[in-house]
């Protein structure tokens, strides 16, 4: 298993623990990740709003670089996943758009012929690596953890571009949680929006969204949360204290990045997985739950 590894901006910025834990866990599982060091930002939908052609050129370049190396792309962020998949679908299916984008890419000696697939760490774990194989690697079953899965929007919707899970009834995160020996907790907000993309524009709205989902998860009996998306993680973890003051309730719910959770079950040290960087301290919970 070898991928062109697209970290995205945030996993190298405010959530460096995601990049670090992904690399460690991949190494342990024998998944080879070739980091795309010269890949640009995916545009996050913002560049699309400014100019669709520009966003398509940026993602076309990233796809062309992976194609040149003969690799499929693995992402660790929902927004990167969606934006790369959107450009990929357009460039694969619309000859006119492909020609227009290749004209632009030609200026830097690249072209894209549609030979790359874009997957997410969560999907790769299930589809490419396999849950049975993952289960066999579990040294430290996470038995005491009651985990609320938080999917994040752009790994589910629009299903026309993603399509791995049923957006109304997804099961992938739950299946990984179960494979790691923990218990998934169902709650209304698990497929809803954390509000990250309006955090700096309408902070109160974003915090009301985040607070609502965290509170529901807690009321449903979860003692922690997991998400495959670093942008959700910013709202759920870094901004949890703000969400708490907005909804007027103390939550204190630790939020894990997906690879951190996998790493714990594989018996890796919390420090190796950079759990020290998570804003809501998970150590007390891990101790109580008997996770070393």
């Amino acid at each position: 298993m070898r991928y062109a590894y697209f970290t995205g901006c945030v996993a190298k910025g405010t959530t460096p623990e995601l990049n670090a834990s992904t690399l460690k866990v991949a190494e342990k599982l024998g998944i080879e990740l070739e980091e795309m060091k010269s890949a640009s930002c995916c545009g996050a939908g913002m560049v699309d709003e400014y100019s669709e052609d520009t966003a398509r050129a940026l993602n076309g370049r990233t796809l062309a670089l992976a194609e040149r190396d003969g690799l499929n792309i693995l992402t660790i962020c929902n927004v990167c996943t969606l934006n790369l998949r959107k450009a990929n679908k357009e460039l694969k299916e619309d000859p006119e758009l492909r020609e227009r984008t290749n004209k632009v890419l030609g200026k830097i000696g690249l072209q894209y012929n549609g030979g790359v697939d874009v997957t997410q760490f969560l999907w790769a774990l299930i589809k490419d690596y396999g849950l049975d194989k993952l289960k066999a690697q579990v040294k430290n079953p996470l038995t005491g953890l009651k985990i609320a899965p938080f999917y994040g929007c752009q790994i589910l919707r629009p299903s026309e571009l993603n399509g791995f899970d049923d957006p109304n009834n997804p099961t992938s995160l739950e299946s990984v949680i179960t494979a790691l020996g923990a218990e998934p907790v169902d709650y209304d907000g698990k497929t809803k929006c954390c509000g990250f993309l309006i955090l700096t524009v309408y902070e109160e709205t974003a915090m009301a969204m985040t607070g609502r989902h965290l509170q529901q998860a807690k009321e449903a009996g979860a003692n922690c949360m997991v998400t495959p998306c670093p942008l959700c993680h910013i709202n759920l973890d870094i901004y949890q204290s703000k969400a708490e003051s907005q909804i007027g309730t103390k939550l204190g719910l630790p939020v894990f990045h997906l690879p951190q959770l996998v790493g714990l079950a594989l018996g890796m040290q919390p420090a190796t997985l950079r759990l020290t960087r998570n804003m809501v301290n998970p150590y007390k919970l891990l101790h109580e739950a008997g996770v070393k």
Partner: protein
Amino acid sequence: MEVRFQIQRFDPEADRRPYTKDYDVSLFDGATVLDGLIKIKDEMDGTLSFRRSCRSAICGSCAVRVNGNAMLACKTQIQPHLRNGVLKVAPLGNMRVIKDLVVDMTPFWQQIRGIQPWLATKPVVPERENIVSQDKVEPLLKPAQCIMCASCYSDCNVAEVDKAFAGPAALAKGFRFVADVRDGASGERIKRMSGARATWECSRCYTCTEVCPKHVAPLDCISLLRGKTIAAGVTDTPGARHVEAFVESVKHTGRLNEVSLPLKTRGFDPKALLSMAPIAIKMTIKGKMPLPIERPIPEVEDIRRIMEAAEEDK
């Protein structure tokens, strides 16, 4: 086909809170949710209230939540939604329940009315009819499909926490008029929606696009509306500044600068800066604060060249 309908019932004159009532119904294979509701009302329980009219997915009156998600009862076959023989039906969200599956759509209509969904005539009366070319009609086709069933509004994640938000249907319709070459008030529309809790409050969750039974793709319309807002030079809002700063950052370093972006978005407002300080300090302590000056990625020159080339084509 045997189906157990679990229907949310509520009569404000008799019930203190909504409750669920079960109905076991025998239906033909391929029956729709509306077929089931009609059978229940005709043969089992005449007190059940729901809206319906055309049965052909064009009047937009029968939208309900099936297993938690908004859809047209008449367009939705039961089979794929059955879970262990059970189908859960509830009224639309984000609106007050009048009775059972009937909601008060006033907030939805208020938002639609707010965008003034009619063509504003141009100050000068044209001498002949408006000729609109095919490429100018193209962008209007999807939003024009809207049947105002309020499915998108029901499930909108932002409207769930902010009742002042315009919502997907009104914004898609707003875009439809902004993009109409015959409209004489595009500029005012852009300004009005950009200043209100409208154009820039959508969090891009794609729920509207997912639930829309007519494939309007409201979020795509909102993105295009944002593009038109920036192109019109209406950029004195945090939302527009956010997009401009984002593009600038990618041009400069090939990546997003997470430190300068929120600062530029909020326009160096001292009060906003102060409110950001506590989290910024905590982030620094945790080692989560990126450097304020990002180093460009390798080959950043290539990024700049293709961004410029793509924009020239524009």
